């Protein structure tokens, strides 16, 4: 494929994926095409199935219908670690750091898809091994620096403040150099000014690492300000898609959230 064709092919594409748990259809016929460099928002009331979509995209759940592709490669038969190796990375709704490991080690685990050292190299401490370890440490510190966490490198990750933990999780997700980043409620627990800083950070990393980002959020100003496109989920069904303005005015969306008031003016319940 030539350059222009690659650029036009969606980096991540979900085609009609569906997931059922017993009698409940958590996600119904969800489709999205993420183009290179986009930031797309995924919103919806609690329990709408947004995190389930993430789980489907990363292979934690196998879809009952439909499938996804990453840069044209089908992911339906792959285990999560293989999917991640193809270039997707995610953060979690409830922060899932490796609590007893240090900040630096947390980021270093993120390098797993690109690590080349062999076991015997590690045991015998070969030149190759030591060189790679040095390189990994350098890269990890660069990421931590970007997040403003470099001075906390040897602290136990559980001892960090909430906001710092969120940023560490993002740093960890960036370690392997993914093409697509899935952020699950990154602004949860942030106040207004922290939320603005986070928006800045996300824009910066998109620039720096040529990322395509899919964001789940409840914080309306945050997602409206960041995303160029938004999808709205309610009870597993995609009820609206379009630009932030279009979605904000969509009557179905308003009803799903609040009933009568316009959304986008202040934060959501």
């Amino acid at each position, binding site marked *: 494929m030539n350059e222009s064709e690659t650029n036009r092919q969606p980096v991540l594409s979900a085609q009609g994926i569906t997931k059922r748990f017993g009698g409940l259809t958590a996600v119904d016929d969800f489709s999205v095409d993420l183009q290179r460099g986009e930031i797309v928002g995924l919103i919806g009331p609690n329990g709408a199935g947004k995190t389930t979509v993430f789980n489907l995209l990363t292979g934690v759940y196998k879809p009952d219908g439909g499938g996804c592709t990453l840069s044209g490669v089908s992911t339906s038969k792959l285990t999560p*670690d293989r999917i991640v190796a193809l270039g997707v*990375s995610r953060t979690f709704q409830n922060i899932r750091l*490796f609590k*007893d490991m240090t900040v630096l*080690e947390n980021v270093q685990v993120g390098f*797993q*898809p690109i*690590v080349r050292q062999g076991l015997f190299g*590690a045991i015998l401490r070969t030149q190759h*091994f030591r060189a790679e370890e040095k390189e990994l440490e350098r890269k990890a510190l660069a990421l931590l620096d970007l997040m403003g966490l470099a001075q906390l490198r040897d602290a136990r990750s559980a001892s960090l403040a909430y906001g710092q933990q969120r940023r560490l999780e993002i740093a960890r997700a960036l370690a392997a150099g993914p093409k697509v980043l899935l952020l699950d409620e990154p602004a949860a627990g942030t106040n207004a000014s922290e939320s603005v800083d986070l928006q800045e950070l996300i824009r910066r990393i998109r620039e720096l690492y040529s990322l395509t980002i899919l964001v789940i959020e409840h914080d309306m100003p945050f997602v409206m300000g960041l995303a160029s496109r938004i999808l709205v989920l309610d009870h597993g069904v995609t009820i609206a898609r379009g630009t932030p303005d279009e979605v904000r005015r969509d009557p179905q969306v308003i009803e799903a959230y609040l009933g009568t008031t316009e959304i986008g003016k202040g934060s959501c319940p």
Partner: protein
Amino acid sequence: MLEGLLNFPNMANHLTLIGIYVILALSLNLINGSLGAFSLGHNAFWGMGAYVAGMLIWTTGSPEGSFFGFVGSLAAAMLAAAFFGLLVGIPCLRLRGDYLAIATLGFAEIFVICARNSEGWTVFNQERGLGGAAGFSLGDGFQGGNDFALSMTGSLNGRYLFYFAFTWTMVALTFITIRNVLRSAHGRAIESIREDETAAELLGVNLTHYKVLAFVIGAAFAGLAGALFANYRATVSPSQFLLMEGIKILLMAVLGGLGSMSGCVVAVFVLYVSEQALTTLAMHVPFLSFSTQGFELVDKPLKDLWQVIFSIILVLLMLLKPQGLMGRRELDRKYVHEILVSWKQDPILPSVTLLQWLLLLLTLALSASPLSLLASIAVVVGLQVFKQKRRSFRVAAPAGGTQA
């Protein structure tokens, strides 16, 4: 008791056994501590190594033995145990904590049952197979001169010295290998599985690969310990590798702190020395006993009660200090530094601890009556309460302060 301990062959003997237990504890620590799995079947890996090494020496060994044969048996044992670890690890991959524990226990029990019924396994020896419940000895055993270490060094003392030195070389090898694995991307991957398996998988960690790896490495080193044990003891029998032995190794790893390698070493020493001390103490304790006459209080020698004490230690440990002596910390420069800082800030605490230890050791070494032991334990507990009170009153406690 002290004099008995300090004479040379005795010392070397104890230290050799301690070394073997250290290897076992370190290998278990990799699986239960670093990977975070709950394997209760480590005694089977140990036994597997012992049996394989023993079989090899027994069937192919020459009367004087040979160094090659010895080392060969170690290598074969490691391979066999590693393979058994693979066998156990693969099915157990998808099992959670409790189920994994029981499944590994099941595998270990199957091993013991097979070992007990091994008279029929006549592939290796037409007469008695693998000896069944009685086991077998490697040739005529070292008393009969049929032992390479004996023939190489020419004397019994030499044999002890050789095994002591060789075993501790193996300990160092084990320690360094496992430490090097842990301080690498592979080690971080393994630990991340312990911390949060799902998150690890979503960062590209191949769960299957690393879980099996940890099992296999752990099993291999347990096999090494088994091979050393078999060669040293010159006999192999199922009763050496019962579940109780596996639990003992688990206690050592837990006491040291699951996840701490230096903790393992310390804990093995502590437990082994305590066991020796309590079982050789000529102390009698009044204890309940039931016979045809009914219940009565008899004076039981303390060594018969060692198992009971051991179980109480395990329960108390889990109730009071489940993270063990060192938690996940290693005895490295940073740790020692922290200790020294806390000592400088409040010299009373470490001095009291020193006092506690001295009191216990002196009582054990000098006295022979249960009353004095009880009294000194009471004083130690009282001092411990004093330390707790004092710690909780200290407002400016150092962050990351250590226990003493």
